[in-house]
């Protein structure tokens, strides 16, 4: 596209955005659907975090589809980057060998990786009580792998184990969903397990369990993606 056309296009887009801002007025109350969600999630599902209740029960099928998208991306990146011939040895077209990570980075990674893993586990299991959940915790867990890849050049991501764990987690999510059809109101209904005491760690039915499976699946998928970029 010619350079001269960029500025009018941006100006036009700016006018559209500007009209959006001018017409925007802060709402004073929740719309009816949101009000229903905010009322129903703590009462029906027993989860203090309304967003997790929506993501893992009312819209859990959507979340399952989203995890499937992540799986397809991991598979697609494997297809794009996985089967390439190894370019070992000095090659004039390759950039010079990377500078090895410094002492501070290597030792810092040793200290930080267990802490980040612990934090990821905390985020995953407290998804129904506070900010967090499977996606967020899984992303933090994958950042552990990213730190290892950056700090330790000899570290290799174990694709076979990660794929097996990811498939197992996906299978367990679907089984839990089918259990919802049999024992509760529908696919991925969280009330297959007792709702329990409001605000306790083991409460909100199947939401913490789903959160753990989802965290494992997302963490494995993102780790595979990171590992493919390394290889």
């Amino acid at each position, binding site marked *: *596209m010619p*350079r001269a056309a*960029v500025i009018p*296009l*941006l100006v036009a*887009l*700016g006018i559209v*955005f500007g009209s*959006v*801002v001018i017409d*925007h007025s*802060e*709402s*004073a*109350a*929740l*719309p009816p*659907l*949101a*009000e229903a*969600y*905010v*009322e129903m*999630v*703590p*009462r029906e599902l027993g989860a*203090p*975090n*309304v*967003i997790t209740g*929506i*993501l893992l029960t009312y*819209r859990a099928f*959507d*979340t399952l589809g*989203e995890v499937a*998208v*992540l799986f397809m*991306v991991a598979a*697609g*990146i494997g297809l*794009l*980057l996985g089967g*390439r011939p190894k370019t070992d040895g000095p090659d004039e*077209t390759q950039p010079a060998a990377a500078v090895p990570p410094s002492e501070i980075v290597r030792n810092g990674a040793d200290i930080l990786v267990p802490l980040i893993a612990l934090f990821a586990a905390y985020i995953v299991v407290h998804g129904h*009580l*506070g*900010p967090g*959940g499977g*996606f*967020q915790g899984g992303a933090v867990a994958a950042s552990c792998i990213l730190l290892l890849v950056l700090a330790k050049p000899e570290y290799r991501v174990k694709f076979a184990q990660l794929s097996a764990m990811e498939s197992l987690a996906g299978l367990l999510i679907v089984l839990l969903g089918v259990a919802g059809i049999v024992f509760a109101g529908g696919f991925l209904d969280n009330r297959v397990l007792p709702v329990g005491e*409001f*605000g306790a760690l083991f409460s909100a039915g199947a939401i913490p369990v789903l959160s753990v499976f989802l965290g494992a699946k*997302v963490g494995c998928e*993102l780790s595979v*993606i990171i590992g*493919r*970029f390394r290889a």
Partner: protein
Amino acid sequence: MISQTVLVTGLLLMLIGVWGMLTQRNILRIIIGFALMGTGSHIVIVAVGYVAGGTAPIVDGPVTVANAAARAVDPIPSALAVTAIVIGLAVIAVMLAYAIRLYEAKKTLSIDAFADSKW
């Protein structure tokens, strides 16, 4: 007022992203422009869900089950933003993988080198 500020920030980020995608010639910079546009749209989604004086839709502390509907912001845009972030990450990962393959093909990241598929 808060949601207007956040909305303007998000829309500006989107504009910067579109500008970056249209003017930059380096594939990595185009991808950064795309990521900026995605981040801007996430901010816009969250800003649209703000309710005056509201707080996070989590029942804790001053927010109780009884008054949650009066105190909380709209949880639906937040839930959709989580979805959008994950899909955006997936798209950017695929774009970066293609960038690696394109670099291997021509040993350059300039978009001008990849004109041969034009009819």
